[in-house]
């Protein structure tokens, strides 16, 4: 598509600068896109097994917890779980991957997860809670990786769109406009030459 421009040399120079800038931007963005893709693939490869592990651990925890709950009297279960002794806090900091701010989660856990006595509770509840405690580490790691992957995927999408716009729209348009200005300028020059030749002929004829 031709840009609405004046076919002047000044414009041509500006367009040449723009096309050079766009090409450089395209190259850099392509490199950024490739690097984000690489990082994303790397993270996605880690997420797969991690998610499987977390799902397995959580399933196991739920199964054991369900069994403990089903075999205990409801009042005993309420009493056992009413006042937790485990304190859990998360600290979120941000790191930069290809100028994308990704979260890094650090956890702080204090106290024992088994928050009840042994008289009226099931041993299966201990096993369930300890399995949940073990699953926390993987769960937090998974949350961190999935958030990183999500943010990188959004950035990758944006970058890819920018690269495509530069590659398929901006640069071809400018190049077309440059070509148009070239032809216009060439035509104007030829016009000018033929006018000068005509004037020369007229002068010689007189």
């Amino acid at each position: 598509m031709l840009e609405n421009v004046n076919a002047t040399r000044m414009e041509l120079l500006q367009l040449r600068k723009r096309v050079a800038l766009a090409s450089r931007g395209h190259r850099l963005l392509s490199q950024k896109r490739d690097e984000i893709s690489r990082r994303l693939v790397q993270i996605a490869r880690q997420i797969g097994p991690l998610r499987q592990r977390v799902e397995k651990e959580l399933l196991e925890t739920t199964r054991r917890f369900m069994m403990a709950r089903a075999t205990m009297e409801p009042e005993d279960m309420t009493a056992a779980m009413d006042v937790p002794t485990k304190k859990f806090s998360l600290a979120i900091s941000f790191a930069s991957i290809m100028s994308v701010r990704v979260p890094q989660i650090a956890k702080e856990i204090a106290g024992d997860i088994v928050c009840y006595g042994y008289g009226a509770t099931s041993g299966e509840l201990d096993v369930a809670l300890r399995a949940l405690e073990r699953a926390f580490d993987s769960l937090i790691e998974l949350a961190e990786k999935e958030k990183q992957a999500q943010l990188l995927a959004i950035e990758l999408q944006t970058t890819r769109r920018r690269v495509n716009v530069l590659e398929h729209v901006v640069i071809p348009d400018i190049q077309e406009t440059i070509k148009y200005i070239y032809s216009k300028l060439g035509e104007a020059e030829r016009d000018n030459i033929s006018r000068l030749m005509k004037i020369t002929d007229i002068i010689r004829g007189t």
Partner: protein
Amino acid sequence: MEHAAVIDFYRYPPIGEEDWQYAFQTAKVRSLETTMLSRGTLVDMANAEDFTAALDLLGGEDYAEMQTAATLGDVENVLLAKRAAVRNLFVDLMIDKDLVELLRARHDFANMRLAIRRVVTDRPVGLDYSDFGSVPAAQFEEIFKQENYSLFPYYLQEAVEEGVLAYYAEKDVRQIDYAIDKYYAKYKVEKASEKGSVFLLSLFRTQIDLTNIRTMLRLKMADRLDKDFFLAGGYVDCERFVHGLDVGYEALATLFYATPYHDVIEGGVAYITSEQSFLRLERLCEEHVMGFLRTTRSLAAGPQPIIAYLIMKEHEIRSVRMVLTCKKNGLDTRLILDRLGE
């Protein structure tokens, strides 16, 4: 009164003599026992294709109204109603109300444990307590708000003190449970002894032993070597459980060989080491208690069959809940059978 850790029986402790005051009540309980679910029914439920098929198996039984239950919430409501009915029947049938109070004390102590935990952690005391204790659930909030513990029976007054002191010694809510569990164990053995109930004394001492066995194995699995968690008053000396913490799993069966719990330990430990689970241990502990309760069938009349019926019925209700919960959530049949027994 301190009870010596002497085992003068082979498998189950004595159950006491007949009491002819309970002739009618025992006959009534005997007829009710015939309506209890057989192990075969529970196993069939466990092997059923799904939750609905498991419910269908209860159609001809005492739990027929559950057939319309669509959710686990409906099932739970029916089971809670059944449990309340059994407990009320028990209160009606028992002539000796002191024994009723003694069996109700379990709920008082459980309520107390919860209330103290809430009070020391500055949570609202609330009203969600068990209604089967001697102290009405509604009174708990009021008593704790006024801090007027003299309104409790004497044994609960002492339990409050023990629980609160234990908490402030280490500022750990679990200490409340440990202290109240110990106090409750001591109280029930003393009270049963005072009442001269051979059966209850045997039952409570067996329960204490089984709790100690579970505690020992739970501590072993958690790699905790605290020696102060065992309850005194059982047939097996606490020292043996403490020693059990120091030896390997393979030596436990030998350590308890001369006790009636050898089979419980052997089967439970084998499952713990292979599956990292307490399912079989808990099943064996329950089977041991049920086996003891079944010995009351030899009595023609007495409070023993009535107490045994209450405990067996509560166990049955828990088993039904367990099977239906597992079926509803699609748990493996093998796991259900491991917990239920085949």
